[in-house]
């Protein structure tokens, strides 16, 4: 029943390099990195986390960027807030559904502080960014003093509230490839309240052939329906290489639903969430298809 945060030692980094130095130094200590603090503060206030050391990277302004070019795609620096992603003109132009995703992430106040990278590192399976990042085939750049590595978005969350980041490592960037021609991308979450965590969410990316008849690539990410965000590969395979019809979408939706492993909660049973995920996939894929046909 606590609302008071336990004491901790505090370090701040003014650059990504300083952050990596601090992380190397405290690699074996009980530390947490803070950027926006929107999840960490809550955990600490409830006594669920009591880190002895806080490493604050909020001052590392070299991590605060959104870059885009047609070759490399989109790069989102670790200090990019949800609000900045939401208001980025290039994101609106190239990945409009990410803006749709952002406007329903919590509240404006939370989006002003919370970072997209912090959100995925927190690895709440019901959080919003991971499913669209999976569908977009994004990768997460993880750095340490020893070097950097790249983790595919669908492998980044390894368990409930647990990411692939190892002690001493810092996520510096999310990379999203530029979308090929004839591609449509869409995302929807279902939550009872605006800005609430998803009961279920679905992101779908579809690429059609030059004649816009057959689906040449499909990627589906699901949120809120398992211990981690899920990539629904079986459902993707149903769509690939075929002309997408309502019947095929229903089949893919069923496969996506079967790929989920939700747990029952106050808001809804596992059974309901499973069905809801399928319904969302069907609807989101339909919209992604419409967008691909217009693209």
């Amino acid at each position, binding site marked *: 029943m606590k609302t008071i945060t336990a004491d901790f030692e505090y370090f701040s980094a003014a650059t990504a390099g300083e952050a990596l130095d601090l992380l190397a130094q405290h690699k074996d200590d009980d530390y947490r990195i803070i950027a926006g603090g929107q999840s960490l503060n809550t955990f600490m206030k409830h006594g669920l986390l009591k880190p002895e050391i806080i490493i604050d990277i909020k001052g590392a302004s070299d991590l605060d960027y959104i870059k885009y070019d047609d070759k490399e795609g989109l790069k989102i620096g670790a200090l990019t807030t949800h609000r900045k992603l939401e208001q980025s003109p290039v994101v609106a132009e190239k990945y409009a559904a990410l803006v749709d995703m952002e406007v329903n992430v919590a*509240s404006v106040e939370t989006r002003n502080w919370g970072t997209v990278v912090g959100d995925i590192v927190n690895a709440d399976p019901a959080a919003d960014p991971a499913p669209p990042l999976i569908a977009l085939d994004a990768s997460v750049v993880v750095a340490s003093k020893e070097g950097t590595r790249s983790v595919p978005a669908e492998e980044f969350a390894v368990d409930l509230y647990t990411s692939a980041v190892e002690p001493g490592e810092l996520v510096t960037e999310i990379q999203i490839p530029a979308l090929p021609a004839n591609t449509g991308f869409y995302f929807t979450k279902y939550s009872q309240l605006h800005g609430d965590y998803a009961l279920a969410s679905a992101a779908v990316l579809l690429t059609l052939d030059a004649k816009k008849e057959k689906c040449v690539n499909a990627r589906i990410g699901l949120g809120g329906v398992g211990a981690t965000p899920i990539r629904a590969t079986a459902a993707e395979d149903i769509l690939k290489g075929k002309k997408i019809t309502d019947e095929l979408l229903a089949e893919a939706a069923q496969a996506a639903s079967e790929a989920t492993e939700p747990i029952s909660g*106050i808001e809804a049973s596992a059974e*309901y969430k499973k069905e809801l995920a399928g319904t969302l996939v069907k609807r989101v894929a339909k919209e992604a298809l419409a967008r691909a046909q217009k693209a």
Partner: protein
Amino acid sequence: MAKEKLKEYAIIGKPTPNVDGPAKVTGEAQYTIDMTLPNMLYGKLARSPYPHAKIISIDTSAAEALPGVKAVITGKDTPGGKYGLWRRFRELSDQECLATDKVRFIGDPVAAVAAVTEEIAIQAVELIEVEYEPLPAVFDPDDAIEDDAPMVHEDFPSNINATRHIEWGDVDKGFAEADYVREDDYVTQPIHPAALEVHNSLASYDKGTGRLTVWSSTQSPYFLQLGLSDALKMREGDIRVIKPHVGSGFGGKNSTMPDSVNAALLSIKTGRPVKIVYNRDEEFQTTEHRTAQHMRIKLGLKKDGQIVAMEVKTIVNGGAFTGLGATDLYLTGTFITMPYKIPNYRYDGVRTYTNTVWGTSIRGFGSVPGKFCAETQLERAAKDLGVDPLQIRKMNAVYPGYEAPGQYTFESCGLLPCIEKMETRVKEKWPKLEEDEGIGFAAFAYMSGGIFNWIDTPYAFSSAHVKVNIDGMVDLYTQASDIGQGHNTVAAMICAEELGVGIEDIRLHLGDTAHTYTDLGAWGSREVLMNGNAIKDAAAQVKNKLIEVARLKLGENIAYDLVSKNKRVYLELRPERGISYYDLVQDAIRANDGVPITGVGHYTPHNKGMISPAYGTGIMAVKAKTDKETGAVVCQDILVVHDCGQVINPLGVRGQVEGSIHMGLGYALCEEMPMDEGNVLNPSFVDYKILRTRDMPEIEFIEVPTYEPNGPFGAKEAAEATIAPTAPALANAVFQNTGAEFVAPVLKPETVLKAIRAAAAKKQGK
């Protein structure tokens, strides 16, 4: 007929910004939670982890040894006073300062600590070792009344806390004459008032005088004064309760609670001020909520839709203590009949003790669960009979002068004009519906203050003291409570109107038991009517004294009537002949041997039935769309046609109506308190879902004014009536669109989806 009529006033009925607005929006307003005193200690409560257990021993030595801890108390250190709101029946004063022999719910306090910081107090609580012997516990009201159920309180066999029987007419004959009879079962969910300011109190005991001062986030300083007097076995007059600004109560801050009692005990022990602030988890786990009810209603109608008989049985999950639950039980039995003419009626209600946190008087108390059941049942009956949902409400609507025998009488009543207005407006507003949309209705009525004296006061229900000073400044003293609903503004408006001065001439002194005459506080929408009458009475006395002096000064023909308005006293028919209020006050005080002009007004209802002197009424329409694949319900639009008598402050009424709808819609869509063996599963604002601005629909709000003879300037309640119709109107909208029927108000998507499928299966089965 009312002698007085609705008329044009200088202040009443004019949109008036909240007098506390600037202080609140700039953060200057002081709430108890903002307060500190020099030398203040921080208190914390050690609470039971068991729903029901014997206390074998409590070892506080480690806590006492912790540096910074100044006092640790357990049940044996308390004076042993029991307390509760139902003081008229002392056996229902069932709360202890700290549990002595056994704990009755998860969170029952067993010890309290005062320390120099809150952190140390928390650590000290963790060092208190309590040995418990867990006892079998009971959580469900139906189980609680079984013969072999564990007893929550030893003096209450079968855990029956209260029962109520209400009956009029000949119910069996009524059902025999009915063309159509249906029975429906409901199980409503508990919800929490979820006030933004948590329960918190600051107590300061003066060892020199033996007197105690308590600042608290309370709805009624007087109730708290009495509760503390009972708990601490102290004289009422030795306890001063001060109510600073309150971050709302919604019914959950009528009862005296362990924060005030134990802050006081710790202050008495240490001689230093002690503050106890609940955290949000404690707020959800251990403070009062709206009770769950298991209800069965039998309704008999003629084939044209006329109601001929109704029978209601309910069993309420009361929880560990009484609170205002016994009143809730009675009101459930009466409000469920409103606002309809029901010639033959029978009600049996039982409130059970169980090993959960207890339920009480949450906003719209007595009306919210029952109205969900009755209004959804009426909708089903109308559909079966092929009667239009508005028509069935209209033909059964109460009217001015309607009496439910021995229970209640509507004096003013604008329900029929409200329904007629709704008939035309709803067609204009929503001429065409989409395939996934539906419209649902629910009619409503709610009290303007209760005629209940469970608190057992010999004082008037409301009183006010008005004093006019030499510069014309008016001091208004009353114990009435502004808890965010805007009563400070209303009190100033009523006082200023009656005296004929401006709002800026009124200086408010509200909510301090040491300096004010008694008022029972803010609950049951009572302050406008009851406190308003007392203020108007006091102000009229002062005005009449001023008019006497004016009459002497002006030397006019005694046949002329004098009025006081717009800061002048003048001849009603010769307005140019008069005297400035400010000049008049100086003369009046001189003539009064230098003593400021005062009046003490009071109000207690007499011969007004069992419930209330007056009722706000009206009808609500909700337009909602339902996603038949996911069960998601979106409340798109709300239309309310409302009769609250003379509107005192249109801005305040709008705020109260919208606030009620917000709570009603939360009850309808997402608010609930699931419990597992007495443990509240969602004790935070992450998991306890409250609608935010973006979740609220547009609300169109039409006032149909009436003149209420019992209210000041013809006013009656506006703060609570519109909560109860919201959930059933929404459920009725979904029912009209999909045929789905609901046993509980909370329309979570899964519940809706199941109900849609059940309705479809039922249709196919036919």
